[in-house]
């Protein structure tokens, strides 16, 4: 397993065993990062999965928040 994740209610940190880097994630990005690889690499299915977790329907604010979290994970090269 390449990544080690530690969660708190207000966020998480992820340790990369390959590079030694550590990243802080907000709760949504942390949840996104825990999705199965095929879901977290596709914004649409990631959004569906998060909506299911939240027990709500996909709407524009959720889509936007997931897109933002997705971009954050991309920027950190976590996906």
């Amino acid at each position, binding site marked *: 397993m390449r990544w080690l994740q*530690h969660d*708190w209610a*207000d*966020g*998480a*940190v992820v340790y990369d065993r390959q590079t030694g880097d550590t990243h802080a994630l907000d709760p949504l990005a942390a949840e996104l990062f825990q999705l199965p690889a095929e879901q977290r690499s596709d914004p649409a299915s990631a959004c569906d999965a998060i909506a299911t977790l939240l027990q709500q329907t996909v709407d524009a604010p959720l889509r936007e928040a997931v897109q933002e979290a997705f971009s954050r994970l991309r920027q950190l090269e976590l996906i």
Partner: protein
Amino acid sequence: MIPTIGALPAADIAAQLAGQGLLLRTGPIVQRITSRLPEVARTIRTLYAHHPVPEDDGFADFHVGVRRAPGLRGHWRAQAEFLFDGAQPFAPLPLPQAYALLEWGLNWCVAQTCHQYLIIHAAAVERNGRVAILPAPPGSGKSTLCAALVQRGWRLCSDELTLIDPADNAIQALARPINLKNQSIGLISDFAPDARFGPLTHDTTKGTVGHLRPPQDSVARVNERARPRWIIFPRWQAGSTPQLVARPKAEAFIELADNAFNYSVLGEQGFTTLAGVIDDCESMSFTYDRLDDAITAFDRLAEKAR
């Protein structure tokens, strides 16, 4: 009864420093210090007065020295050199800064070699068995606050180097002198007139620095380990009222990791240790102006955690 450094005659200390070296134990660390500089001998006797004289079994973790630079550099604008195992790890400083160079050098030795601990650039103080870790950049008032707290009943673990044992996340104290700068020196002298400083060193890159002797009780209890309970990022701000504001744990983690000397050296162990510490602690920012108000806020935290 174990003799203390302060109980040794000044001539004995000077002779040991000039000879095979003076042994000094600070928590788990034993250093053998050599120096022929009278000011260094006097200041060690003042600042480490409460430290016991360790038994000399021939072992020391660090062999360090501070000396007048040889040749012309020791005379023309005389310089002092710090030696670690006979090597010079950093550039010399003006001779009047010799004692400060020794303290900074000892910090460097710990930060560079004590990787059995996760070492954070932070002060740590303890009350009722619980430790507050105060990480902060220079100028934030961390050392001033630490000095004030230990003059009002908090136990000094460390002013500069917080040692966390990865085995149980407990803090190992060092109880070494507190390094204060510029206005903080006068502030603490007024706040605690009985507090004992070594001689002031002027014109350093940090301005005027003075080292404050650690309280006797902190030295006596140096091996009493305690678990961290709070991570508090202090910031002195003129005119502010004391305010503690919760910080997200992930953010506190990254800030502590950034303030660690050896987080990346420890790798995954550093990550799990720090995560465990954050689990156990409340993370807060603390803004303050008056030291008395800061003490009250800290005392309240300690009382609440009982």
